[in-house]
């Protein structure tokens, strides 16, 4: 199986879907002639031309609205947010129109768009460029959101997102773009709403998503090697729809859950998962659910401080040991 980067995996998904379905197109700032701010769409404009890969003006609200309208008439646009943080200027289009159109129209119109782009901190780009908004997307019935943690999932989930008939947000990560994973050459799809057990274990479960799932996997290996504690790591992959069954089965097996996410803790994704666990696996818990999330403050510009603000291995291991106390 070839090793390819996360960036390349997403590009392959876009490329393959453009070829598979004539209605699929890419829109966004600098996605075409400049090959994308993070080079995710590199070469696609040259390969597929103006009609399929479209540079837009610098207005997220405008091209989001354009995509939503087009999608109502059968086009399946994939719009790129240079940073997911910039979706804030398109809140009304994305969180008000895209999310509720199918419901408001009594099911007559659906909005098959994909909103993709990096949503992560850790790169010292400051508070306004570092949002992880999956918690916010997931709070809107009608929207779907996935957070691939590796190249395989990024490709498989992107293709599933494009083929889905509802608005799907794909949260990418600039720190993962250059990382490599094995990705098969043959076509595959990673279904929305199916979590992935990255590592089996018996003593505790770490539930995570996005890049944090990879940090959690490394932390789990360290904990196992140094403390002899067997840690299961569940990568949610999809925040909404959520794979409740995998979460609950794992927690029922281990009796202890540590939730790790880059969102801020307050009303974060893991607040919801924590509720789910206590509600549906209460009798299986041997300890309260513990969390590691970003420290509750605007994302700090200073790199050393930000590296501590967002979850890191040290913090995950420390909290895991607390959970096992």
């Amino acid at each position, binding site marked *: 199986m070839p090793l390819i980067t996360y960036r390349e995996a997403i590009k392959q998904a876009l490329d393959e879907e453009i070829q598979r379905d004539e209605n699929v197109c890419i829109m966004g700032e600098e996605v075409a002639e400049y090959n994308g701010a993070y080079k995710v769409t590199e070469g696609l404009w040259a390969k597929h031309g103006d009609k399929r890969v479209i540079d837009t003006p610098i207005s997220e609200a405008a091209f989001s609205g354009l995509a939503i309208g087009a999608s109502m008439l059968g086009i399946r646009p994939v719009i790129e947010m240079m940073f997911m943080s910039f979706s804030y200027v398109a809140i009304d289009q994305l969180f008000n129109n895209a999310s509720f159109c199918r419901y408001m129209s009594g099911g007559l119109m659906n909005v098959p768009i994909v909103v993709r782009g990096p949503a992560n901190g850790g790169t010292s780009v400051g508070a306004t460029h570092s949002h992880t908004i999956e918690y916010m997307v997931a709070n809107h019935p009608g929207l779907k959101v996935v957070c691939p943690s590796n190249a395989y999932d990024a490709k498989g989930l992107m293709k599933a997102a494009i083929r889905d008939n509802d608005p799907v947000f794909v949260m990418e990560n600039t720190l993962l773009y250059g990382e490599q994973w094995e990705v098969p050459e043959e076509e595959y799809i990673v279904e929305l709403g199916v979590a992935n057990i990255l590592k089996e274990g018996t003593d505790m479960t770490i539930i995570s998503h996005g890049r944090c799932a990879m940090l959690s996997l490394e932390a789990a290996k360290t904990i196992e090697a140094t403390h002899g504690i067997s840690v299961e790591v569940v990568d949610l992959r999809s925040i909404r729809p959520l794979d409740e069954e995998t979460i609950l089965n794992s927690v029922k097996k281990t*009796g202890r859950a540590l939730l790790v996410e880059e969102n801020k803790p307050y009303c974060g994704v893991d607040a919801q998962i924590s509720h789910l666990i206590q509600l549906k696996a*209460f*009798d*299986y*818990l*041997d*300890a309260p659910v513990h969390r590691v999330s970003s420290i509750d403050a605007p994302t700090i510009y200073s790199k050393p401080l930000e590296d501590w603000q967002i979850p890191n291995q040290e913090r995950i291991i420390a909290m895991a040991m607390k959970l096992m*106390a």
Partner: protein
Amino acid sequence: MATLIDMPKLSDTMTVGTLVRWLKNEGDAVANGDMIAEIETDKATMEVECFDEGILIKHYCSEGDEVAVADPIAAIGEAGEEAPAATSSAPAAAAPEPVAAVEAPAAAPAPVAAPAAPAPVAAPAASTGARIKASPLAKKIAAEKGLDLATIQGSGPGGRILKEDVLNAKPVAATPAAATSAPAAAPAATLEELVIPVSNMRKSIGKALVASKTQAPHFYLQIEVNGAPLAKLRAELNGKLAGLPPEQGGVKFSVNDLTLKAAAEAVRRVPAINRSWEGDSIKQHANVHLAFGVAIDDGLVTPVIRAAETKGLREIGAEAKVLIKKARSKKLTPNEMSGSTLTVTNLGMFGISDFYGIINPNNAAILSIGATIKKPVVNEHDEIVVGQVMKIGLSGDHRTIDGAVGAQYLQALKEILETPAMMLV
């Protein structure tokens, strides 16, 4: 005026108790310390001790009846006296505490300790009603296995009972509490990590006992004693004397008083036990300076009764009482704690059946008195009967004495305890 005996609250979750068996019938004479009934609580079957003397004039319930906590179960008065009518439950909030006020040790006692008070009856649970902390999983497993969480020690944060604790717990059979058992320590609401500075007392305990255990080669002997005669003697003495005002000689003897007296008495029969190792000589003392362990806050002291072999039970009891009081208020003088020639320790009130103390420096031996526990024993007719077994351990300093001396001493002590009248001669 008749006295009512109420259904005691024997555990913090107990609201009713079942009268399993009457041990005293209507019309029976009862004495302080008698067990009058067996009560089944939600946790165990325990005996109810009587703290009055007289005639049991009325049973307010029959065997098998459920009685609310604090409702009367029996009345004790004089022969021919009319029993008062049973009144209904006192308000729940006013439910009386169990009769015997028990000194619940805050922490596990040091391995050398003597009882300050007569051993209490059944173990009343903490009256604080602290909620049992258990993880949901632990609760579920406990329910499946039919285990009572109140009997399981939690190892988790704040004392939370975890899965592991339940899996390691053994089912608890309903067992009558031994008459001598002390209450289990009340579960702490939270466990906390503490760094405790080493007090001067702990330092000197550590220093003295490390020196003893490393310098004196300890050997250990144990003898089983029939505790019934001593209990009978004590009941007789207390029955006559406990009710009198002090100026008329009123006094109440503890098991400890009696064992101290017996230990001193036995030295008269085997004086070789009363020796000290002095390096190039061994000194046999002309008096028994008898030390006994008293557990106090964060420590242990061993006050000394001088020339105990010359003193009567009343004197020993009175001196011990004063010394215990001084020990608790930390008012013992160094003089009162030094110069012992033999030491007696007692963990019987905690239900400890047998143990071995570390020899007090410069003594040849230490006696470790266990609880008197009801057990099947074979009597002189080769019949298995209910016996009251008391185990006494002796740790001896092999430099000073040999096993045979220790054995002779224990034999003499056993004889005295089983025939307490021997203390007269």
